[in-house]
């Protein structure tokens, strides 16, 4: 009979397993975050950068970047919602309607865009949404003077395009493992296919929607390239404001305050989200079975 490993040894193993990620996160996430928080209470040095101080001026000054906060806090949730609305039918088609043979191929196609650089794909969208793209075609149909590029719409279109796979895959997984017999039971009890969808399929696939939304929302909140390219600097996010503050005006303490505010907002949003969506027993249970 094999002897059980002594507890101290299993603890060592655990420590060794956790160490790489733990050290990585400590030095590259926790420490920098502490530095950022400390900087946020500092003052701007005369030549730019950071000068030690303790002041709340930077936080009092946050409304100066109110537009960036407003854009981020409206477009990130809206983009997440739109992505979910576009992703759900696609995931449903893949998981339920597509034949098992074509399913794998179609799933690969969903991920294919990731094989080219995100930057390159957004440049393509600049062309598509620019004055020589879709608006020029619409002009033929009599719809003139339509501007898409450099508007919030362009950013939303880019968000849906860029984050669709991240939303499709978790929804696909939750729909794919849905027990088809539950739909038979629902039909047997008198529900037509639409009612069965609303009462069985949708609630049981919500964990997938929740996971996908979380992923997309977090990434959109910190987005920089998307508003930079498709918003043309006119629709700017907190990410753009940060680049501006750190690299252009070199007001590091104010940048640090904006960063801290962003992290705080994200943290609160995610906690509320987890509390009200993911903590629901039935959703959690459905995610497990």
């Amino acid at each position: 009979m094999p002897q059980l490993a002594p507890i101290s040894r299993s603890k060592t193993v655990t420590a060794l397993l956790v160490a790489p990620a733990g050290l990585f996160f400590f030095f590259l996430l926790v420490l920098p975050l502490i530095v950022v928080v400390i900087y946020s209470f500092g003052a701007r040095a005369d030549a730019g950068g950071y000068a030690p101080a303790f002041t709340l001026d930077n936080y009092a000054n946050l409304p100066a970047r109110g537009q960036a906060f407003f854009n981020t806090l409206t477009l990130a949730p809206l983009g997440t919602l739109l992505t979910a609305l576009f992703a759900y039918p696609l995931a449903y088609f893949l998981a339920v309607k597509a034949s098992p043979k074509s399913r794998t191929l179609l799933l690969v196609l969903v991920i294919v865009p990731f094989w080219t650089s995100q930057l390159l794909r957004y440049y393509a969208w600049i062309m598509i949404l620019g004055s020589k793209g879709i608006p020029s075609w619409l002009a033929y149909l009599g719809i003139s003077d339509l501007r898409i590029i450099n508007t919030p719409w362009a950013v939303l279109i880019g968000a849906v395009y860029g984050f669709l796979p991240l939303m499709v895959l978790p929804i696909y997984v939750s729909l794919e493992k849905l027990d088809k017999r539950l739909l038979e039971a629902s039909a047997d009890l008198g529900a037509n296919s639409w009612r069965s969808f609303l009462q069985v399929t949708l609630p049981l696939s919500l964990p997938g929607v929740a996971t996908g939304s979380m992923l997309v929302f977090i990434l959109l909140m910190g987005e920089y390239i998307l508003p930079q390219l498709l918003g043309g600097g006119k629709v700017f996010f907190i990410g753009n404001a940060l680049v501006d503050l750190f690299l252009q005006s070199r007001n590091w303490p104010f940048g640090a305050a904006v960063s801290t505010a962003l992290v705080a907002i994200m943290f609160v949003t995610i906690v509320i989200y987890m509390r009200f969506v993911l903590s629901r027993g039935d959703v959690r249970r459905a995610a497990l079975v």
Partner: protein
Amino acid sequence: MTQTIVPDISFRAVSKRYGEVRAVDRVDLDLPKGSFVSLLGPSGCGKTTCLRMMAGFEQPSEGEVFIRGDNVTGVPAYKRPVNMVFQHYALFPHLNVADNVSYGLRQRSPKPPREAVAKAVDEALAMVRLQGYGQRRTWELSGGQQQRVALARALINRPAVLLLDEPLAALDRKLRHDMQIELQNLQRNVGITFLLVTHDQEEALSMSDRVCIMKDGRLVQTGTPRELYDEPVNGYVADFVGKSNFFAGIAGNARSGLIDVALADGMKATGRASRSTVSPEAGEAVLVSVRPEQIRLAAAETDLPNQVAFRTQAKVLNRIFLGEQTEYLVAHEKLGEFMVRSPRQGNQALAFEIGDRVAVGWPPDAALILAKD
């Protein structure tokens, strides 16, 4: 006007094909109102496909399905007045017990009032002895309790027929037995027609009023459990329903209800035809079927009772003590091995040991002369 009783479900020449395979082959079936009917057969015999065509999950390739006289061929499941208890219950994991049970009522339009639904749920849960379980999550319940939730969820709708798809297969032996009795009582109390699909012959025989035996997509025989046991139409049914010994032979001439059969090596046996089918023709290849409990054992041929017509010698190969009965496996030089069940003897001297030579025989009316299938 004479009132004819319309069966709750009827099949008229129903077939179901999957490509070239006929899963169900021209089945005619009637489920009498208020009866407990079993559809019995080995896996792949088409019994589950029949059930799914009753529920509306599958539509027949040919033939027609009637529910209480209405032709429902082509009608989808959600419009049919039947309900099903699924093999693995298929309870909704995101709903509690009460919401599972009320699901069918909540699909009706107009929606019944909330209080009426709550009352019906309480009654349905009481019927399956799960009072007070309404707020439980389904996964907190044991297998037997989940089973009863599935029953309540189906019966609350007062279906024309309750379809049960191998409902006891997932339960352990003891619980299965309890549920068998409970299902029978439930059926008598609610008076709804039950259709049970099972591969377990014991379950089918013990619970149902009528049993339909299927093989390769066809309905082989329908009858009461007793009819199937005593008057099987062929060797397949005799073998499937209870145990039997079979001896192959060629049918000879019939005389006064009895048929002579030529067995291997010039041996002869006499038996009767089953009342469920026509007598085999002279010259037809047949099976002589004798139930193990119909065969008599004795120390010598002269000790066998007078009515025993077929007599021969065999050797005891094995003996299994079953309490009220003893099961012997005996070997005959020409007929091969066969099974004998003797009731417990008060006199221990009448028990035989392995290796003993014994006289065996059976009366003519114990032997059934059957077609193979």
